[in-house]
């Protein structure tokens, strides 16, 4: 196999077609044929995988470029039919609105607490938590709707770190922290909680934000400093 053919012939064979596919030099029609063959011919697919392995180290030369987050919203819209956010949503995005809402919600929580003493308590539909920590400039506000199982979190003060992610955790009683996901935007990040997780979000549950490597804690448990934490109250 190591014999080099004479100069006037084009070497051929499946292995070279596989290499050309991985390199990407083929014209569109041939590429489509090869892509179909990869799906149906396992031996050929193995040849392609082997060439891909050989060239993988060159991937280091693709420099990362930060991608605008709205692309993820469009992906979600295409996959899940979630609403792509309109370009401008002044009220929802306004920090003043959220600060106002935070205070209003806390006030409601206090009133609700007093009312529960004299009335038979009904299970709350909405929960709020104001999250902060000593020495941290970050203040956040969370609102959870038990019916839609949507938890909305917004940063009302402080900045999101550029080179780290803020990860949100739910701590119910003595259980270990449960990751709810990472904050995607300082305005509003919405987390849809699965039913078993939503059931843990009750009066007294703690929500906390920690600084984690980009993309979140690799281990599934918090690894970084707590920048904000707070207790959930039903309203």
């Amino acid at each position, binding site marked *: 196999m190591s014999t080099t053919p004479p100069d006037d012939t*084009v070497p051929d064979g499946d292995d070279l077609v596989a290499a050309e596919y991985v390199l990407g030099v083929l014209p569109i029609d041939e590429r489509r044929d090869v892509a179909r063959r990869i799906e149906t011919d396992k031996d050929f697919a193995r040849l392609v995988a082997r060439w891909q392995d050989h060239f993988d180290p060159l991937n280091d030369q*693709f*420099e*990362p470029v930060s991608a605008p987050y709205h*692309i993820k919203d469009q992906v979600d819209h295409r996959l899940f039919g979630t609403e792509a956010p309109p370009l401008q949503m002044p009220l929802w995005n306004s920090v003043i609105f959220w600060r106002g809402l935070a205070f209003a919600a806390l006030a409601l929580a206090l009133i609700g607490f007093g009312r529960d003493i004299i009335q038979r308590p009904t299970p709350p539909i909405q929960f709020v938590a104001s999250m902060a920590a000593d020495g941290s400039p970050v203040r956040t506000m969370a609102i959870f709707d038990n019916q839609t199982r949507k938890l909305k979190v917004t940063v009302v003060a402080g900045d999101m770190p550029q080179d780290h992610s803020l990860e949100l955790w739910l701590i119910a009683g003595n259980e270990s922290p449960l*990751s709810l996901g990472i904050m995607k935007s300082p305005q509003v990040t919405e987390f849809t909680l699965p039913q078993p997780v939503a059931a843990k979000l009750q009066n007294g549950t703690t929500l906390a934000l920690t600084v984690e490597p980009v993309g979140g804690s690799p281990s599934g448990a918090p690894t970084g400093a707590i920048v904000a934490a707070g207790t959930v109250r039903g309203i």
Partner: protein
Amino acid sequence: MTPEGISELISRVSLRDRTAFDALYASTSAKLFGVCWRILGNRTEAEDALQDIYVKIWNKADRFAVADTSPISWLVAIARNHCIDVLRARKPGPANLDEAVDVIEPSPDPEQSAVAMGEARRINDCLGQLEPARADAVRGAYLNGDSYEALASRHRVPLNTMRTWLRRSLMKLKECLEG
């Protein structure tokens, strides 16, 4: 994030875990956007491609388990293949290579990069054994998505000659890499 962390996210995505999908996007989109930008050469097409790529990742995540490759290689292969398809399908026209790019400093995990450096040295050593023009053609194809036509016109040789050149170079590379 470690390769194990990314593998776990892809596995969770295959189970339709949207939180994992969000985290996967957050930790890998910069790399894949870098691939799109380099190959497609302009922001608009790169953004469209990135969308299509993450739709594919969501739909194909269950295939990762049987792919027997590192998670980032698997993701980059999806991105490269998609971008090259886009490039091949589009009408020839000048790419805008001068647009400003917000490049992030890569910060690979030290252990991972030691292994990667060994492998990179191997492919680079083997490329170094080719004539420089041919090694450039191989690199240009892989990293920039150059087609046979583009390579032939750049190297001022007929298309068939280019194909012969490149295939011979690939055979030599294989001998070196697997020898």
